[in-house]
C-alpha cells in the first residue's frame, strides 16, 4: 500500500525550471536561546569619549530594572550561522516559483533593494522639517501622481502600511463623506468571494457587513445586489478582477446602481496586477482604491510584511484624505518646492509618520523601470500565464468557472476529493515536494476544495510547464495511489506536516513557555 516516497524529479526543462525544495535545510536548528553561552557577546560600539556617570545617577530610584533583560548571548559567528541556517529553511521567490493566488508573488527586482539602501533615502529622520526633506516629499508626489494615473483617480494618500490598513482608511473616508452630506449610513456591501480583511475592516470602520452572493458565472449577483441596495448603504467593496480571477463584467451597472442610492464604490486593489494599463478603477466608477504595492509593484513581501497600501480617491473625496500630505507648491518659475498640507476635512493620521516610505521608494523605482508601456505588458503576460495554466489543467482538475480568467485561476480538487479522498490541502502539500510553493487553498470560500493559482508575469513558459507537469503528476497519483499515500507528503521539506491542533491547544508562543 505504502510506496517509497518519490525522489525529487530531475530538474530542468530548457529555459529553467524554478525548483528549490531539495535545497532547503532539513536539520532542526536550535533556537538562539539554546545557542546562548553566558558571557559571550557580539555587540561592538563606537568610542565616544563621553565621561562616565554612575548608573545610579542616571536612572531615578524606583525605576531601575533589577535584572537585565535576558537575551541570547552568542558570538557574531554563531549569530550569522544561526540566521543563515534559518534562511536555508525558508522558501522564497528568489528560490523558486510561488504561485500563491491573490498574493502576486512576482520576482522583486534587485535594483529596488539598492534604492531602499541609498543613504539619501534610508538615512532620513521622519520628523525633519520639509525644508530638509525636499527629496522625500518630491518622491512621494511623483509616486502619488503615477499611482493616480494608473488607477484613474484624483489624489492619493501614501500613509497606509498595508492593504488592510488601506481598506480601513477607505472606509473611514466613506464614513466622513457621508457625515459631511449630513447622513448616517450603516451598511457596506461585500460579495461572498471577498478577502477576509474586507469584512473585518468594515466592522472597524463602524459599519455592518451585508454579504451578496455570487452568481453562476462567479460575479456579483445583480438581482441580489438590487435587493439590498437602499439609502442605508454607505458603499460596496469590490475586488475586480474578483478573487475568482474573473472580471466583473457588470461593473458599470453595479457602479450606477450603488451611486444611484448615494453609495460609494471601494476598489480592493489586491488584483490590480491584472489590469495595469488596460482598464482603470476610476474609469469603472470606483471612488476609493487601495493598492498593495507589495503585490502589484513588486516590493518584497518580507515573510509577511512590510507592505504598503496607498489609497487613491476621486475628486470629491480629496478634502477628506489623511494628513498631513505632501504637496507641490506653485511658487512660479523656480524649481518645485514641496510642503506638508493637511486637507480641510482630513480624517486624520493613519500612520505614525508618512507611511512605509522605503517601500514606497521601491515601488516608484519599479514604476520608473517598467514605464507606462512596461506596466501594460505586465498585466498582459500575467493574464496570459494564468490562462495557459487554466487551459492546460482543464480536465485534470475541476474548473468551477469555465471562462477565461484574468491574472489567476481558481481550480478545484472537488472531484478528486469525492472520488479518491484527496483534498486540495493534499495537492498543496504534495506540490511542495515538487519544488514549488503551494497555491492558495480553500479560498475563495465559495469554491469547494479551491486551489487558487497566480503564476505572475515573471515565471517563464518553462516554469509554467514544469508546474503544470507537477500538478498533472499529482492528479495521476490521486487517481492511482491510495489517498493515504498522498496524505503522507511532504517528506523532504525542512519539516513535514505539522500538528497544528497541538499548537493551538498547548500554546507555546515563546521559548519561555516551553515548560
Amino acid at each position: 500500500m505504502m510506496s517509497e516516497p518519490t525522489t525529487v524529479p530531475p530538474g530542468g526543462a530548457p529555459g529553467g525550471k524554478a525548483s528549490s525544495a531539495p535545497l532547503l535545510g532539513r536539520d532542526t536548528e536550535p533556537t538562539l536561546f539554546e545557542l546562548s553561552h553566558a558571557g559571550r557577546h557580539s555587540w561592538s560600539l563606537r568610542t565616544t569619549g563621553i565621561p562616565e556617570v554612575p548608573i545610579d545617577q542616571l536612572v531615578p530610584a524606583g525605576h531601575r530594572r533589577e535584572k537585565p533583560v535576558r537575551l541570547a548571548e552568542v558570538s557574531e559567528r554563531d549569530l550569522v550561522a544561526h540566521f543563515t541556517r534559518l534562511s536555508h529553511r525558508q522558501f522564497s521567490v528568489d528560490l523558486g516559483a510561488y504561485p500563491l493566488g491573490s498574493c502576486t508573488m512576482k520576482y522583486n527586482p534587485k535594483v529596488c533593494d539598492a534604492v531602499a539602501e541609498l543613504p539619501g533615502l534610508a538615512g532620513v529622520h521622519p520628523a525633519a522639517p520639509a525644508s530638509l526633506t525636499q527629496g522625500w516629499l518630491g518622491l512621494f508626489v511623483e509616486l502619488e501622481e503615477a499611482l493616480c494615473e494608473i488607477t484613474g483617480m484624483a489624489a492619493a494618500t501614501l500613509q497606509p502600511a498595508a492593504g488592510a490598513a488601506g481598506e480601513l482608511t477607505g472606509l473611514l473616508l466613506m464614513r466622513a463623506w457621508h457625515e459631511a452630506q449630513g447622513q448616517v449610513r450603516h451598511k457596506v456591501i461585500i460579495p461572498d468571494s471577498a478577502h477576509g480583511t474586507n469584512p473585518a475592516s468594515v466592522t472597524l470602520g463602524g459599519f455592518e457587513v451585508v454579504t451578496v452572493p455570487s452568481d453562476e458565472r462567479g460575479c456579483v449577483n445583480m438581482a441580489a445586489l438590487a435587493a439590498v441596495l437602499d439609502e442605508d448603504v454607505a458603499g460596496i467593496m469590490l475586488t475586480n478582477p474578483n478573487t475568482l480571477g474573473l472580471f466583473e463584467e457588470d461593473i458599470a451597472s453595479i457602479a450606477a446602481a450603488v451611486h444611484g442610492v448615494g453609495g460609494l464604490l471601494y476598489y480592493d486593489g489586491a488584483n490590480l496586477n491584472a489590469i495595469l494599463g488596460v482598464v482603470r478603477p476610476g474609469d469603472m466608477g470606483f471612488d476609493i482604491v487601495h493598492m498593495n504595492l507589495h503585490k502589484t509593484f513588486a516590493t518584497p513581501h518580507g515573510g509577511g510584511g512590510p507592505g504598503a497600501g496607498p489609497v487613491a480617491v476621486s475628486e470629491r473625496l480629496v478634502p477628506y484624505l489623511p494628513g498631513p500630505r505632501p504637496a507641490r507648491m506653485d511658487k512660479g518659475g523656480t524649481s518645485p518646492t514641496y510642503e506638508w498640507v493637511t486637507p480641510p476635512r482630513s480624517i486624520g493620521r493613519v500612520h505614525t509618520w508618512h507611511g512605509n516610505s522605503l517601500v514606497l521608494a521601491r515601488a516608484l523605482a519599479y514604476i520608473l523601470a517598467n514605464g507606462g508601456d512596461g506596466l501594460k505588458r505586465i498585466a498582459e503576460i500575467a493574464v496570459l500565464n494564468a490562462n495557459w495554466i487554466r487551459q492546460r489543467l482543464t480536465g485534470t482538475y475541476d474548473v468551477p468557472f469555465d471562462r477565461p480568467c484574468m491574472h489567476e485561476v481558481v481550480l478545484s480538487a472537488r472531484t478528486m476529493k469525492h472520488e479518491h479522498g484527496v483534498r486540495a490541502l493534499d495537492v498543496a502539500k504534495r506540490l511542495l515536494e515538487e519544488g514549488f510553493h503551494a497555491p492558495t487553498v480553500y479560498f475563495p470560500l465559495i469554491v469547494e476544495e479551491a486551489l487558487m493559482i497566480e503564476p505572475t508575469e515573471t515565471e517563464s513558459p518553462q516554469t509554467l510547464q514544469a508546474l503544470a507537469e507537477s500538478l498533472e503528476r499529482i492528479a495521476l497519483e490521486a487517481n492511482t495511489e491510495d489517498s493515504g499515500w498522498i496524505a503522507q507528503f511532504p517528506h523532504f521539506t525542512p519539516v513535514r506536516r505539522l500538528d497544528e491542533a497541538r499548537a493551538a491547544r498547548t500554546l507555546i508562543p515563546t521559548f519561555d513557555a516551553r515548560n
Partner: protein
Amino acid sequence: MGNYIPHTDDEVAAMLAFLGLSSLDELFDAVPEALKLQRALELADGVGEPDVLAHMEAFGEQNRSRTDRLVCFAGGGAYDHEIPAVTRALAGRSEFVTSYTPYQPEVAQGVLQAIFEYQTMVARLAGLPVANASLYDGGSAAVEAVNLGAAASGRHTVWVSAGIHPHWRQMLATFAAGTGHRLQTIPLAGGVTAWPDVDAESGDPPGVVLVGYPNYLGCIEDLGPARDVCDRTGALLVVGTDPVAAGLLKSAGEWGADVMVGEGQVFGTALGFGGPYLGLFACAASHVRRLPGRLVGETVDVDDRRAYVTTLRAREQDIRREKATSNVCTNQTLMAVTAAIQLGWLGTSGLVEVARRCAQATRYTRDALLSLDRVVPFVDAPVLREFAVRLPVPAETVIDRMADAGFLAGIALDGEFDDGEHGLLIAVTERRTRDEIDAYATALAKAVA
C-alpha cells in the same frame, strides 16, 4: 526598461495559439470596451537600471537632513541607533526578504522560527508572557491595544496621557471615528501625567488607560498612579514603552501593565523617513485570544520534530471575518526578523550597554545645553535618553540655523505639543561622540543668540 518578464515574442505567440487567441488584447475580452483605457498610460517609458538609480539618488541629494550630512539629534520615537554590518547582511538575506506570510509551514520554518525568537525577546523585554509577530508601527500597536482593551473591559472610554506621542494620539482619534471609542486626553503637570481622581462608581470610568514610559518628552513617570486608576475602575493598563530605555527601566509587566506597545525601529531598522517600522505588542496571557495580528507557536511535525506555525488562527480576519477584532493581515515581519537579529547581536549585556550609553550621552548633552544662556528645561521631571528644552526663540528657526551648522537639532514642539512654544525635543544615542555634542552645544549657543 526593466527586463523582468522572461517571455520572448515567439513564446507569447505559442502560448496565445495554445489558447486559440491571436492577440494579447483578446485576453481582456471580458473587460467592456467602453471601460478600457483607450490610450497609453501617461507615464514615461521604462528606463534602464542605472537611470532608475540616478533618478532615485537625485531625490536623496535633496534630503539635506540625511544622517550622512547632518548629525542627528532628533528622536521622538525614531532614533539614529547603530545598525551593524551583521544585521544588515542577515536581514537582507533574500529568503527572509522575498517570502510571503508563512502559510505553508513545511517550507517556512526560517521565518516562523525567527518570529518565535522575536516574540520571546519582546515578551522578555515587556515582562509579559505573550508577544505577537508585529504590527505596522508604534502608533498602530497603540490603536490595536486600545481596541483590545475596550473589548476586554467592555468600555469605550479611553484615557490617554498627553505624554503619549502626538502622532499616536492623532491616530487614535482617526480610528476612534470607526470604533466609537471616546478619547480623553489627561494633561501633564511638570512632565508627568496628572491622573484625575476616579472610582468605579463615577460616571464614565475608563476601559483603557494609555501612558508612555518614558513619555514623549523623555520623562520617566511613576506608573503606580496609572495602575491605581486601573485597579479602581477595572480598566486595562497599556504602557507605551521605549524599548531601548527598557534596557535600564522596570518592565511594563513589573508596573502591572496588561499590554505593552512600542516602536521597534530602534532594533536594527533604518530611520527610512518613518517606515517601514515595527509595532511591538505584548500582553498578559488572559488576553491572548484577543491578540491582534499573527502569533507563532511551537509544535511538532508528524515525525515529532520541533516545528513552528502561526497559531490561534481562529482570531484572525480571514476566518472570523466581520467578527474579528483586528483586520491586520500583512504586518512587518521583516522588521521583526531584523529586530531578532539585532537583539541577538546586542545580547543581554549589549542592550544594557546601549541604553546606558544613550543615558550618559543624554546627560552630558543636557548639562551642556542647560549651561547656555536662556536655555531652560522644558519640564522638571527626570529623563533618561531624551529631553526637551525651552529656547528663547522658536525651535523651527533654531532647527533651520542648526542645519546650516551641520546638525539636525531635534524636533520642534511648537504645534505638536500643548504649550510647546519654543520647545525643542532632543535625543542623543550611543552613536553621538563627545566632539559632536560639544560642537552641537556651541552651534546651539549661536543659533539661539
